[in-house]
């Protein structure tokens, strides 16, 4: 089985005492620049173009939320690269200001437990930067790992998966779409209320209200369930980066791992031609319908007037994968099977053992906690305090956010250990290309001019040298032993 390289990027919400959304770009820029750890303050943007579409065309421009444009009337924030304030951290992660949100993009990983640990290392990086910025601006800075402000603004938690370009885009769309719609029952972050359409008290997904089209390359406005941005960060002849934007910011690590595992299982089945053949009548409507059915199975209408449920869709991917992969005893397949087994068990537990379900699934954990408040205070779910508590669930400061309290009480599945998170904040433990980036930033930062997902550019005695980092290669730990940057470059080119 080809291990699928993956990464998560999270745009964090934050508030600064006495400041508002009109100041958010300046604040996010200053927050990122306050990051107190060692880093490379550069990012090579040359290979990035968010307007290319996987369907073979290029957008003239990307849509922007008209409400956000009002914030910037008559204001300039400076050159784009200054505003982004890119940092490459010691673990090879990218930390920057994306549209007014501190964004942490994890190093690339193969393993599910590694991606969960690096996701937590991202929380740590943002918290450290926020604490440093709070000292500078002498105000309370709070960080929220969520996807909505409850007033119609959403920000994303995206996934990236390395997929061969040889797979036809239609196969990917048809093979992935049902899973993207269905997996929210295990990976939704939960939301009090709604920001579009009919009012509801509580829904499974934070993002469902914001999808308006089944497929397109937009991300800021007119968001799709299936994003077709074509920005491979690798050899474009060989690879695409499947950019999944309909996932959510999970706080329970189990949910983070399941989110990635369920997308990967769909990709594996598409790659081998074994994907289930669901034909959704309307993916956008189905996404919203599942989100708004926290007490039901989540009905998904199919073409031809038939219908199915989120559970049946997920099982239709997982069961054949478990059967097909049983002979593969490698660590990647073994870990995938373990977590997909958990997915099946949770689908069973959703109605038969809701306590078990709420230990692993964010939307259910948050709902259970908030229900306690509703009962105790005798307030309706429409009371404004409920959205405030929803927000507080996602506050990531240790000892502050409601999820942090649940963790301390042992009421949800445990996080990666603190030692692992601290280690991943500065190291890469897999032989992915992120290891090379991490070593370059850690050991050869003085000679490292800039970096990107696919390249490292050094200043050497012989001039500027750009080294490619093909994602399909493995990068051995022995790279750490290189004494000079020239040795390092030579070893990279030999791997």
């Amino acid at each position, binding site marked *: 089985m080809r291990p699928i390289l993956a990464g998560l990027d999270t745009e964090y919400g934050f508030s600064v005492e006495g400041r508002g959304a009109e100041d958010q770009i300046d604040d996010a820029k200053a927050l990122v620049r306050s990051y107190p750890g060692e880093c490379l303050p550069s990012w090579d943007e040359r290979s990035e173009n968010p307007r290319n579409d996987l369907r073979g065309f290029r957008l003239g421009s990307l849509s922007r939320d008209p409400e956000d444009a009002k914030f910037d009337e008559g204001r300039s924030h400076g050159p784009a690269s200054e505003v982004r304030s890119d940092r490459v951290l010691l673990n090879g992660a990218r930390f920057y200001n994306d549209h007014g949100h501190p964004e942490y993009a994890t190093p690339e990983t193969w393993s599910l437990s590694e991606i969960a640990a690096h996701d937590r290392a991202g929380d740590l990086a943002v918290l450290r930067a926020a604490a440093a910025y709070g000292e500078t601006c002498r105000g309370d800075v709070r960080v929220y790992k969520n996807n909505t402000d409850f007033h119609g603004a959403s920000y994303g938690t995206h996934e990236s998966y390395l997929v061969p370009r040889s797979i036809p885009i239609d196969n990917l769309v048809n093979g992935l779409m049902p899973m993207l719609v269905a997996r929210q029952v295990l990976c939704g972050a939960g939301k009090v209320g709604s*920001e579009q359409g009919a*009012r509801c008290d509580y829904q499974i997904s934070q993002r469902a209200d914001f999808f308006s089209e089944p497929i397109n390359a937009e991300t800021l406005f007119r968001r799709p369930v299936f994003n077709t941005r074509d920005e491979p960060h690798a050899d474009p002849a060989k690879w695409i980066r499947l950019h999944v*934007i309909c996932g959510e910011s999970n706080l329970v690590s189990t949910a983070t791992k399941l989110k990635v595992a369920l997308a990967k299982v769909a990709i594996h089945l598409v790659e081998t031609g074994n994907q289930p053949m669901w034909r959704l009548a309307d993916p956008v409507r189905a996404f919203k319908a599942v989100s708004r059915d926290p007490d039901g199975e989540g009905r998904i209408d199919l073409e031809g007037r038939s219908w199915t449920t989120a559970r049946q869709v997920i099982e239709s991917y997982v069961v054949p994968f478990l059967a097909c992969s049983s002979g593969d005893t490698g660590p990647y397949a073994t870990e995938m099977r373990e977590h997909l087994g958990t997915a099946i068990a949770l689908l069973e537990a959703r109605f038969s053992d809701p*306590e078990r379900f709420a230990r692993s699934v964010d939307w259910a954990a948050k709902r259970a906690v908030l229900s306690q408040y509703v009962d105790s205070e005798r307030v309706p779910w429409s009371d404004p305090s409920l959205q405030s508590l929803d927000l507080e669930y996602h506050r990531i400061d240790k000892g502050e956010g409601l999820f942090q309290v*649940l963790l301390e009480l*042992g009421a949800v599945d445990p996080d990666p250990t603190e030692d692992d998170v601290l280690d991943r904040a500065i190291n890469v433990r897999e032989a992915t290309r992120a290891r090379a980036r991490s070593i370059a930033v850690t050991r050869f930062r003085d000679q490292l001019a800039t970096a990107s997902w696919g390249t490292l550019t050094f200043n050497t005695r012989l001039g500027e040298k750009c080294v490619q980092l093909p994602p399909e290669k493995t990068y051995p730990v022995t790279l750490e032993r290189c004494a000079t940057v020239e040795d390092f470059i030579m070893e990279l080119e030999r791997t």
Partner: protein
Amino acid sequence: MTIYAERTTRRMDPEPERKLGDDAGPSKPDVKRPGGPNELLKRMKRVDPDQAKKYRQRSGQ
């Protein structure tokens, strides 16, 4: 902090009037509460009930 008017691009259906204690919200899930209910409740009662009203973000991706 400047509070902007509600976004006009996203229309909400009118919210039905509700009374305290009426049949509001999703049915109570049959979930045993997470451990330490008093601690959680105390923590929840310390949250500014209007913090979500004040929380405004720009759209991200």
